[in-house]
C-alpha cells in the first residue's frame, strides 16, 4: 500500500518530465513566434500614431496618419485593386484547382507526373514568376508578338500596358503559381469521399457529371472554405509578385496595399504613414478572418449540440 501511494504521488511528476521534450518543442517556438509577431505588430500600431518620418520618434498625432493615407490616390487605387484582385484570384484559383483535381481524380496513368507538374510552380519564387510573366505578357516580345508572327496579325494581348486590365495580368500570374496548391487540397478531399456514397449514386444511375455535382462536391465544402481563406490571405499580402511583374503598374494602376506600405515606409521615408497603411491592411485581414473564425466557432457549437 505505501508503495502504491508513493507511485501515485510520483506519477504526475514523472509523466510531466517524460513529456517535457514535447512541451519544449511545441511551446518554446510557439511562444517565441507569437511574441515576435505580437510585439512587432504592437510596435507598428504605436508608430502609426506618431509623427515619425525617417526614424521612429515618440509623439501623438491621433488619426492624422490614417486620414492622410486614406486620402491618397495610392491607397484608394490599392484598395480597389485589392477587391478586384482578391475576388478574381480567389474565385478563379478555386475553380482552376477544382477542375485540375477533378481531372486528376479520373485514375489516369501517370497521375503522379501530372500532379508534380501542377504543383511545381509553387516552388518557384514570386520574383521569378513575376519577371518571366512580365516578358510573356509584354506585347512587344511575348505572347502577342508570337501569335502575330504566326499569322493572326490583329491579335491583341496587351493587358500589361493597359491601365484597366493590368491587374488581371497579376491575377493570371498568381493563378499559375498557386492553383497547384488548391488542386492538391481538393484532390485530397476528393479522394476521401466515402466510396459507399459513390457506389450508391452509381446504382441509382447517376452519370459522372451529376455525381460530381450532387454527391461529391457538396462534401468538399469545408475544404473549399479552407482554400478560400488561405488564398485570400495570400492575395492581401501580395508584394513581390506585383513588384516584379508590373512594378506598380502602368503609372500607379496596379498598386496593392503591401506595395503602398513598403513605398511609404522605406522609399519615401514616411514611417508613420506606412505604419498606418500596414494597420489598415491588418484590419482588412481581420475583416476576412474574424467571420471565418466566428463561422467555425458556430459550427463547433452546432455539432456539439447536435
Amino acid at each position, binding site marked *: 500500500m505505501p508503495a502504491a501511494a508513493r507511485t501515485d504521488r510520483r506519477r504526475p511528476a514523472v509523466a510531466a518530465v517524460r513529456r517535457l521534450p514535447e512541451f519544449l518543442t511545441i511551446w518554446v517556438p510557439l511562444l517565441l513566434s507569437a511574441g515576435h509577431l505580437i510585439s512587432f505588430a504592437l510596435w507598428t500600431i504605436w508608430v502609426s500614431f506618431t509623427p515619425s*518620418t*525617417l*526614424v521612429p520618434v515618440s509623439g501623438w498625432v491621433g488619426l492624422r496618419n490614417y486620414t*492622410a493615407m486614406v*486620402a*491618397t*490616390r*495610392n491607397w484608394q487605387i490599392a484598395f480597389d485593386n485589392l477587391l478586384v484582385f482578391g475576388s478574381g484570384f480567389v474565385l478563379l484559383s478555386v475553380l482552376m484547382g477544382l477542375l485540375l483535381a477533378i481531372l486528376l481524380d479520373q485514375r489516369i496513368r501517370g497521375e503522379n507526373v501530372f500532379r508534380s507538374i501542377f504543383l511545381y510552380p509553387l516552388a518557384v519564387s514570386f520574383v521569378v514568376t513575376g519577371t518571366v510573366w*512580365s516578358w510573356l505578357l*509584354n*506585347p*512587344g*516580345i511575348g505572347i502577342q508578338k508570337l501569335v502575330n508572327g504566326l499569322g493572326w496579325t490583329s491579335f491583341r494581348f*496587351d493587358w*500589361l*500596358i493597359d*491601365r484597366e486590365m493590368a491587374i488581371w495580368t497579376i491575377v493570371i500570374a498568381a493563378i499559375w503559381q498557386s492553383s497547384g496548391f488548391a488542386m492538391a487540397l481538393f484532390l485530397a478531399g476528393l479522394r476521401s469521399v466515402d466510396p459507399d456514397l459513390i457506389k450508391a449514386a452509381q446504382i441509382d444511375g447517376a452519370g459522372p457529371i451529376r455525381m460530381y455535382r450532387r454527391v461529391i462536391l457538396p462534401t468538399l465544402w469545408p475544404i473549399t472554405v479552407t482554400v478560400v481563406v488561405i488564398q485570400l490571405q495570400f492575395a492581401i499580402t501580395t508584394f513581390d509578385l506585383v513588384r516584379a511583374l*508590373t*512594378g*506598380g*503598374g*502602368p*503609372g*500607379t*494602376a496596379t498598386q496593392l496595399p503591401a506595395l503602398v506600405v513598403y*513605398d511609404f515606409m*522605406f*522609399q*519615401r*521615408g*514616411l514611417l508613420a504613414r506606412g505604419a498606418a497603411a500596414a494597420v489598415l491592411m491588418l484590419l482588412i485581414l481581420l475583416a476576412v478572418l474574424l467571420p471565418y473564425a466566428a463561422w467555425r466557432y458556430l459550427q463547433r457549437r452546432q455539432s456539439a449540440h447536435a
Partner: protein
Amino acid sequence: MNKITRRAMLASTTGLIAAPRLARAQAVKPRLTVISQWSAGSDGAAITALGKKFEEKGGTWQHSPVPGFTTEMMNKLRAQIMAGDPPACSQLKGPEIAAWSKIAATVNLDALVAAAGYEKVVAPDLARLHKPGGKWISLPLQIYSTNMLFLSKRAMDKAKADRIPVTWAEFNALAENMKAGGVTYPIANGGTRPDDGQKFEAALAGISPAAYRAAMMTLDEKALKGPEVKAAFAQARRIADWMDPNTAAQHYSVNLPRFVAGDMGMMIQGGWAQGVLLNAGFKLDDFIIAPGPCDNGKPVFLLNADAFIFWQRKEPDLQAGQTLMAQLVMDPAIQTMYSQITGSIPVRTDVDLSGAGWSDGQRRTAAALKEAVAANQAVLSLAHNMAQENGMTAAIIDVLTEYVKNKAMTPDQGVARLSNAVEGAR
C-alpha cells in the same frame, strides 16, 4: 658585472608593452567603412577604382554596396544608424543630406574644405545643398545632367536632319521628321518612375527655367497652377506619344540596341547613359550628345550630383580614414578619374576637359553647366531626388508617371492632380 635587477626587468618589460601603443598612436592606419548603391556597371567600376586609390595611400577600404535604387542603400543606412553603428562614410544626395543630418551626428568638414579651397570651385547652388546649417558635412563627387539629348546617328540620317534641336519647337519638328523618315518610335524610353519624371522636368525646365525653380524647387502654388506647367504637361504628352508603349516597366537600357540601330530616334536621359551605352558595347560615334532643349536659347542644366557624407565615429582609424577620403574626393585628379569612368563631369569647375579620356558629350555637358550657371539656369533635378525630399518627390512622380502612361489624361487634369499631390504631401 652588470646584474639585471628585478626592478630593471620590470621597468623594461613595461616599456616594451607600452611601446606598440605609442607607435600605433603616432601612425594610425586609416580605415573606412563605406556604403553606396554602386555595385555594378560603370558606377561599380568607378568606386572600386576610388577604393584602390584609397588603399594606395595606405588605407583599408571596406565598401559594402547595396544594389538597387538609392532608397535601398538608405534603408541599410537607417538600420545601421539606429543600431548605433553608422558607416564612416556613405553616399547621400540632395535635400536628404539636410534631413538625415538631423537624425545622426555628422563630421564637420569646414577645416578640410578650407584647406583644399574646395568651396571656390563648386557651383553655389550645389554647395548650399551640402552645407545645411552653414557647415560642410558632405562632399559632392560628380555631376550629371538629367536632361541630355541623345540622338541616334542612323535615325538622324533617316530624318535627313543635320541640326541638333535647341528649342522644343525644333525638337518636335525633328521628331515628326524622324517618324516620317521611317523611325518607328522617335523617343527611346524606359518605363521606370524616374524616366517618366525626367520627361516632365526636362519639358518644364526647357520651357521656363524660372517657372521650374518656382514650381518644383520652391513649390510655389501659383507657379504650380501656371501656364508654363500646363505647357510642360502638353509637351510631355507629345513626348509620350512618340515613345514605344510596349516598354511597360522595363529599364531604358532594353531599348538601347534599337536606339543605336536607328529604329528609335532620340533619348532624353542623364549623362550616365553614355557610360551605359559604352558598357553595352556601342561606340561613341553611334550617337550624338547635346544639352536638352531650352526655349530661350541658353542651356538649362538639371543638376544631379552624388555626394559622400561622413558620420561621426569615435574610432581613430575611422576618423583618419574619413580625413583621407575627404581629401581624395576633393582632389582634381581623383575627380577626373572617377568622371572618366562613369561619364559624369567633375564637380570642380577648374578641371580641364580637353584631354583624352573625355568624350565630346562630357565636354558639351561641362560647357553647358558653365553657361547655365552664368545665366542662372542651373536647377536641381526633381526626378532624381535633388529638388525635394523623397516623400514629396514620390508624390509628384506618382502624378507624372500616371500622366505619361495614361493617354486619356489631359494637361488640365495633370495640373490639378499635381497641385493636389503637392498639397497633400506638404
